């Protein structure tokens, strides 16, 4: 008997005569009503000591350039809107071709990506690693992550966040949920930001086109 058959037989035996509990009657995907979704999002992301700026759609390029004022070499995903980078001055921009090694990624000062969903109540950004976000290593190894989130991508709380992520999961893509910069509380439960992930998370929240 294989371990698989043995385990399945043990489970069947353990459940013999047991009441089979149905899935719960839970209101999945419920909307959390918020007076001002964007304000809540900003407040909660700031709570994690991330940098958050609100910008107009035409102000993205200037804000990106400002956030990268101390960078000399950055990496971007292949599908990042090029107009976001037009204001950069003396910054070498490398578009990921999928072949940069971890060591090579480690030599970039920053990465700029888009996002898929922003969750207001928890201050979370979710990447579904589409073409404007790139593969996971891009937004992991460089020490500064500039993430452009549109207000139209914001949802109230976690229950509303799953539906917009479903397609990416069904397509076999990974997800990365990011709530502030990397942090640890392993020493006396005191929170310290900046361990292995990017030590600085800089979020640009873009207002809807007026």
């Amino acid at each position, binding site marked *: 008997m294989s371990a698989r058959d043995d*385990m399945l037989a*043990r489970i069947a035996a353990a459940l013999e005569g047991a009441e089979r509990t149905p899935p719960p009657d*839970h209101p999945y995907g419920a909307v959390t009503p918020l007076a001002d979704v964007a304000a809540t999002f900003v407040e909660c992301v700031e709570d994690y000591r991330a940098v958050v700026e609100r910008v107009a759609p035409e102000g993205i390029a200037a804000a990106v350039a400002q956030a990268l004022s101390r960078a000399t070499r950055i990496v971007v995903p292949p599908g990042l809107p090029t107009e976001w980078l037009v204001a950069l001055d003396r910054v070498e921009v490398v578009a990921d071709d999928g072949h940069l090694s971890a060591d090579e990624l480690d030599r970039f000062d920053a990465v700029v990506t888009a996002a898929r969903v922003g969750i207001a109540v928890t201050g979370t950004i979710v990447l579904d690693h589409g073409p404007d976000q790139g593969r996971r290593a891009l937004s992991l190894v460089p020490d500064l992550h500039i993430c452009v989130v549109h207000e139209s991508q914001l949802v109230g709380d976690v229950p509303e966040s799953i539906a917009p992520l479903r397609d990416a999961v069904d397509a076999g893509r990974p997800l990365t949920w990011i709530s502030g910069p990397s942090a640890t509380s392993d020493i006396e*439960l005191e929170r310290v930001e900046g361990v*292995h992930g990017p030590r600085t998370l800089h979020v640009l929240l873009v207002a809807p086109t007026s």
Partner: protein
Amino acid sequence: MSGTFIGMPKFQTAAKEALGNSQQRRNLQHATHTIREKRARVVEELDDWEGLRQAGADIKDNVLSHLDTYLVQLEESLTRAGATVHWAGDAAEANEIVTSLVRATGADEVVKVKSMATQEIGLNEALEEAGIAAWETDLAELIVQLGHDRPSHILVPAIHRNRAEIREIFLREMGHVGTPPPAGLTSEPRELAEAARVHLREKFLRAKVAISGANFAIAETGTLVVVESEGNGRMCLTLPETLISVVGIEKVLPRLEDLEVFMQLLPRSSTGERMNPYTSTWTGITPGDGPQQVHVVLLDNGRTDALADTVGRQALRCIRCSACLNVCPVYERVGGHAYGSVYPGPIGAILNPQLRGTTSEVDQSLPYASSLCGACGDVCPVKIEIPDLLVHLRTRVVDEHRGGMPSGEEIAMKGAAWMFSDHRRWEKAQKGAELGGRMFRKKDTIGRLPGPLSAWSDARDAPVPPAESFRTWWKREKEGQ
């Protein structure tokens, strides 16, 4: 201090030793109080925490009562997504599978994401025996590993260490296994975390194989989920060529949508945050992104035994948040080592005897490692009735010892039952106690009793019987009227 839990004495013996460590008691008190207050604050923020807890419990009960169906579905989804699924009945089988998978890659080292399942099966020791170095990359796990220590908390395994002790461990040990800490290292948490960052970065960037657990495994899609803080998880799950995940069979969730419940319950219950810094999900192999060899080892190791216990099976709902540890008055004083397992605290007291059976001294003693105050059950995000299960397991331990010579406790309990069953006998006994009480004169508590009774008197401060019982007083007062 040794790095293994094998051959642990019973809880009460180990607890006595731990209670003598005043530094550890201070560290634990500070840490558990900090985190329990944080948890209370963020739980308060949600309108319907109770509804969420109920949903969490209900989803898990649905999973457990259809576990065979969901596991087969998970296997199909994972296989379709390019992962290879392995089944392991016990720790030895799981360790053998993982060891041979690592060997097949030709690697002689692996990086590890913090994982309770791999600790439970002693994977690091098994790999070491096979000549494979396993580097723990979670900061607290690193502190435990470098200190040749044992974990004492599910979430913060080095909770028993303070900053000064951690600094010493880093200075003494880090240089032997990789990048040493900077010479002027202080005990500032920020500097200690930076030393760990530099030390581990070298390992992340060169690692070919990573080993993880999973917080959740979604049957419908074959998606695995790791919830973490530091980014060490992301490093391990993303950079290496091969990823091996050891997943307890109770970790399965039916659908992606179920994450909405657990991604609210888990961060608030464990670190007391609205959301943990990083959560990664992956679905088998994604071409061009992350490991291109993905293995999943589904682990039983006693879980089906727990499932067979109709009362005890609810312990398998556990999502390893450690909220029950942080509120437990026993854990707060004794710490995690006395529980003799990687699962300490109230959840450990019910999980270990079920996963390992009640044959060892420590597993027989664990159901008694509680005052049954009920705080653990109140905070559990999946509503495990921990106090009820403790009593259930006490019954099991007692039942297993029936027959043969009765213990002193049994004789005493039989005597008490006989006495309580008749009010005349009870009154006689009280008279005796009044006399006994006078013997202690001005003392408030009974001190050490002689002979076998010392086992009872040493473990508690029992008040001396009053000079006059309520019944005697009532009688006297009534007669005086």
